[in-house]
Every structure is written in structure tokens, then in C-alpha cells.
């Protein structure tokens, strides 16, 4: 009788590390993995005030979609190869932290696993904003996967 775990990924090496760590240390035979990708898009629309290049924006969005598709495919393939029951969700519309907490509740997962930070560039905090939010608002146990200290 396996449990369901929610893994949040975003394309950063931190979430990849968390994913690998989960498989190696936490996954047990029979568990189900719900993989969620709800990272915000990062699209550079140029300087405000200047008429935005609609074509460029559309192309950028499409590229992001393709990149996300490829990323999630890679993860799902790993799970498939290991014959792990998995489900992929790519919701958008709200902030990632809120989405993760909401989905975890809806799916009634046993726990949430995520990295310490993602693709964000701000490095002043010890914990990224999404991870921080999820830890504070989750209804279930949260594992924050911190990599071993490296020279950075």
C-alpha cells in the first residue's frame, strides 16, 4: 500500500538534485509520484514603455513551453524506466508556492519534496521563496532537499 508524494520541479539543478535524492533515499516500492511543474515563466519583454514586440513574446512563450515539455519528459522518462507510477501536472495561473500547496491538498499526498531554491537569481536568502512558502503553508510534511555544501 504505497503513498503518494508530490515532487516539485522547475528546471533548476536544485530540483533535479531533489528528484534524484528522493528516488535514492525516500521512494519505496509501490509509491506513486506526482510530478508538478508550475514555475513562473521568465520572459524578457524588453523595456517598459516601448511597444512590445508581439511576435518576439509569442516566440519566447512557445520556446518556454517547449523547454518545459522537454524537461518534464526527461523526468517522466526516468520514472517510467524505473517502473514508478507517476503523474505529471503543469498547472499555471497562480504563484508556484500556492499551486504546490493546493495540489498537495487536492491529491491528498503524503508529503511534498522540493529543493531549497530554484531558478530564481536572488541568492541572499538561505531558502528560496517558493520553498519557504510551501514549508509554512503545507498541510503535510515537507522535505526540503539541501545539497551538501559546495564551493560556490
Amino acid at each position: 500500500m504505497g503513498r503518494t508524494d508530490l515532487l516539485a520541479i522547475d528546471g533548476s539543478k536544485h530540483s533535479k538534485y531533489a528528484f534524484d535524492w528522493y528516488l535514492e533515499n525516500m521512494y519505496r516500492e509501490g509509491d506513486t509520484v506526482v510530478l508538478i511543474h508550475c514555475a513562473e515563466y521568465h520572459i524578457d519583454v524588453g523595456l517598459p514603455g516601448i511597444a512590445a514586440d508581439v511576435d518576439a513574446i509569442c516566440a519566447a512563450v512557445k520556446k518556454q513551453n517547449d523547454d518545459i515539455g522537454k524537461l518534464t519528459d526527461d523526468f517522466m522518462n526516468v520514472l517510467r524506466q524505473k517502473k514508478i507510477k507517476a503523474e505529471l501536472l503543469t498547472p499555471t495561473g497562480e504563484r508556484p508556492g500556492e499551486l504546490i500547496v493546493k495540489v498537495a491538498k487536492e491529491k491528498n499526498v503524503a508529503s511534498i519534496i522540493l529543493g531549497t531554491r530554484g531558478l530564481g537569481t536572488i541568492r541572499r536568502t538561505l531558502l528560496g521563496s517558493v520553498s519557504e512558502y510551501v514549508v509554512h503553508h503545507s498541510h503535510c510534511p515537507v522535505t526540503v532537499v539541501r545539497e551538501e555544501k559546495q564551493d560556490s
Partner: protein
Amino acid sequence: MSDGQASPLLTPDGAEDEHRPVGKVVLIAVDGSENSFYAFRWYLQRFHQPGHTIVILHCPELKSVMKVPLRSTDHHCVNAMVREHDQVVTTLVDKIKDILKSAKVNARLIKQSGDPGHVIVKVANENKATLIVTGSRGLSSARRTLIGSVSKYVLHHAQCPVLICRKDVAT
């Protein structure tokens, strides 16, 4: 992991080299609170695998015991509070030992004094822990925050993954 062994190793203070745990070390921080007990049970049910070595770290924080300003010179009063606190913690640790025994799981029990956050991180580093398990809050009576100060400290300063186990949220 034979069940014929004596009760789990009890080291009075800190870990000695010859007893260094092998395998993947999971450090479970307990403080006598129901939250940390829940975290321990959750770990055992949901996470524990034969390859994991459990280290239970008990780091009592006497600050939370002193509910009255320490202007009281009444030794009896202070002693009573400390004793009551010790009793709560001992009861919980005994419960944990019983569960481990009936689950036939071996674990080390470490008791260390000091600032709990720092101690937890230090012991985790010393034992090269794979994971730290902690409740979301402990015995402190402050309820304004969603996560206690010790758990927060550990979350930010640990050098390994941290599992924060919430109990006080309605499912």
C-alpha cells in the same frame, strides 16, 4: 538488526567514534513535544527503510520551561518546573524507545544540551546525516508563527535535506 540486543545505545553526551553509525543516517530531533513525537512516528511509518540508521537527538531547551520571569528566588518553584519538564520529556523518550523496540528497529539516542538549532545541525554534520527530521514546532508556547524557531534554524542551516513534519494543521 537483531532484537536480542540490549536497549538502544544510550550515549550520555555526544557520539563516540567507535559507535559511529553506519548506513544512511537519519537524525530525528525530539524535544518532548507531541509534534516531534508525531514526526518520529511519521518517519517510521512512511520513510524508514532497512538501510537507514536512526539517531534520535534529544536536546532539551530549558528556556521554554521558564514560564515566569526568573525573579523568583523560590528554589522549589523553579525545581518543580524543571522536574515537570524533565518528566514530560522522559515520558516521550520512553514512548519512543518502546515503539522502536516493538518495531525491532535499532536506534541511537543522543542527549545534548545547548541551543537546540545549533546542536541539531552540529550533530547532523558530525554523523554525516542523510536527513534531519523535525516537527514544525516544539514545546514553546508561542503560536504566532507557522514554524518554530528551532525548525526554522535547522531548515536554513542544515547541510543536508530536512523533513519538516506538520501535525497541527487540520487535514
